[in-house]
């Protein structure tokens, strides 16, 4: 009985780690298959890229402006006004928007909008045995379906990161204006704190988020089972696991970046 209790509590954990392992394997296969000829995935790559772009640009615009204005903008401004240091909001936006919120909001929107679409699409194909039929017809689903989505999502998240941080900062500007402060000091502290490291760190991080979302969502779609309800379950799990993966990766990435580039720790 003790054993069965142990089994029951260990089984889900074991299942989870098995899936994480499978996703790692899928990542490896995807990268190998992306660089090894032939390259039949160009058309699908462009389709997926445009698909993600079309689906996400508007939700992302709203999210980043609203988030930048609301969370770091108003809240931080409110706090800084206490010390009469509202000019520091610009410097804070380097930390908040460039380093953290722009990649994070991009990832959340991409996972929610494009990632779920990928899981639902692949899941439906799996359920209808289309993926089986493809394999029997000699088409490798990793090369023809996963690789283009993987590359497209990485490119899209990388580009959207720049887009998101621009609109995020716009939210900060709005907040400054709402406090009737001039914008000069905002930009001054912004540019004394911003560095090239911040920018490439942000883009690299966000690109990796894209990779995580693509792998998790493709994996969940391709392993969906149990009819239409199974696809629903797969989509739900894909989003949850994507977020977990993104947060875990963010911790590792931030820690590493701060350790290897101590100069960005200094607030000027």
């Amino acid at each position: 009985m003790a054993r069965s209790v142990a089994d029951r509590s260990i089984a889900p954990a074991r299942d989870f780690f098995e899936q994480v392992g499978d996703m790692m394997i899928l990542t490896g296969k995807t990268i190998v298959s992306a660089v090894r000829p032939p390259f039949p995935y160009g058309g699908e790559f462009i389709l997926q890229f445009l698909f993600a772009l079309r689906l996400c640009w508007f939700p992302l615009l709203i999210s980043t402006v609203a988030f930048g204005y609301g969370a770091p903008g108003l809240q931080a401004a409110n706090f800084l006004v206490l010390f009469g240091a509202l000019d520091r909001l610009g410097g804070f936006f380097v930390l908040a928007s460039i380093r953290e919120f722009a990649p994070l909001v991009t990832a959340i929107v991409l996972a929610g909008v494009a990632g779920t679409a990928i899981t639902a699409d692949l899941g439906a194909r799996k359920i209808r045995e289309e993926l089986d039929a493809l394999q029997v017809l000699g088409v490798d689903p990793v090369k023809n379906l996963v690789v283009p989505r993987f590359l497209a999502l990485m490119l899209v998240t990388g580009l959207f990161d720049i887009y998101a941080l621009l609109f995020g900062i716009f939210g900060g500007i709005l907040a400054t204006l709402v406090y009737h402060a001039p914008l000069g000091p905002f930009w001054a502290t912004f540019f004394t704190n911003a560095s090239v490291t911040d920018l490439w760190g942000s883009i690299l991080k966000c690109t990796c988020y894209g990779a995580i979302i693509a792998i998790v969502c493709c994996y969940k779609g391709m392993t969906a089972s149990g009819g239409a309800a199974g696809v629903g379950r797969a989509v739900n799990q894909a989003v949850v696991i994507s977020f977990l993966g993104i947060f875990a990766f963010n911790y590792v990435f931030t820690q590493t970046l701060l350790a290897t580039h101590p100069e960005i720790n200094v607030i000027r």
Partner: protein
Amino acid sequence: MSEEEKADRPIEPSDRVKVVQESAPGGAEEYRWHTGLNRPTGVPDAIEFIDVHKAFGRNKILKGLNLGLPEGKISMILGPSGTGKSVCIKHMVGLLYPDDGDVLVHGESVPNLRDEELFEMRKKFGVLFQDGALFGSMNLLDNVAFPLRQHTDKSEDEIMGIVNARLAEVGLTEAGDKMPNELSGGMRKRAGFARALVLDPDIVLFDEPDSGLDPVRTALLCELIQEIHEENGGAYTVITHDIMSARRVAEYIAVLWRGRIVEAGPAEELFNSDNDFVRQFLSGSAQGPLGME
């Protein structure tokens, strides 16, 4: 005692007893009708299952399946719903791997092939999946043309010629530009049938080609299978629930139940079998060893 352990208690013992009761006395009775008799056909086997076991989690589907499907004949796999006929087909093309045992195609062990060899081997196959498995993003013409575009370097004109001929055979000439979700189940089946045959494969696997078709179309489809088989030869495997179809086209029959072969052999011999289960199944009678369970 913790909360969790208390909650466990009422479920645990009864669970255990049930499992024991199910497998112990069942064991003797379960395979009463499984003589496993394989009457010789006089030709070598194109596909062989050797003591194949397959389980999904705790759900054991194949339990020591031994089966040979003869070269150059139309074989039928018959068996009650849910016994693992579709699972068998997926083993043949390497979409599923056995937990134990081996699957041979033309003497090659499918589970032991490397990925590239497997892709190569699959070119021998034409498969009609149970639900048609058409690609939802392409219209019928493109679906049927897909294998040709993938594996041959024929010109687009040649391809369209072949595709139209195949679609005409299954009566879908009009529907060529329709998307799969605009079609009825039976139409999707027939399109999948056309796609499976478009490369003139050596080994053809049809998973219930006749389900969802009206009686006349079923009869016509049976004739079509026979005609195409006469033209091309090769090992055809058809899964069906329709005894009429089996009587019409089967040259070899294997009856699958509870993860093993009950009996297999040339069609005439099986239709005259003295095995109660085989007799019940092939006559579709309610009386006999097979119940609803």
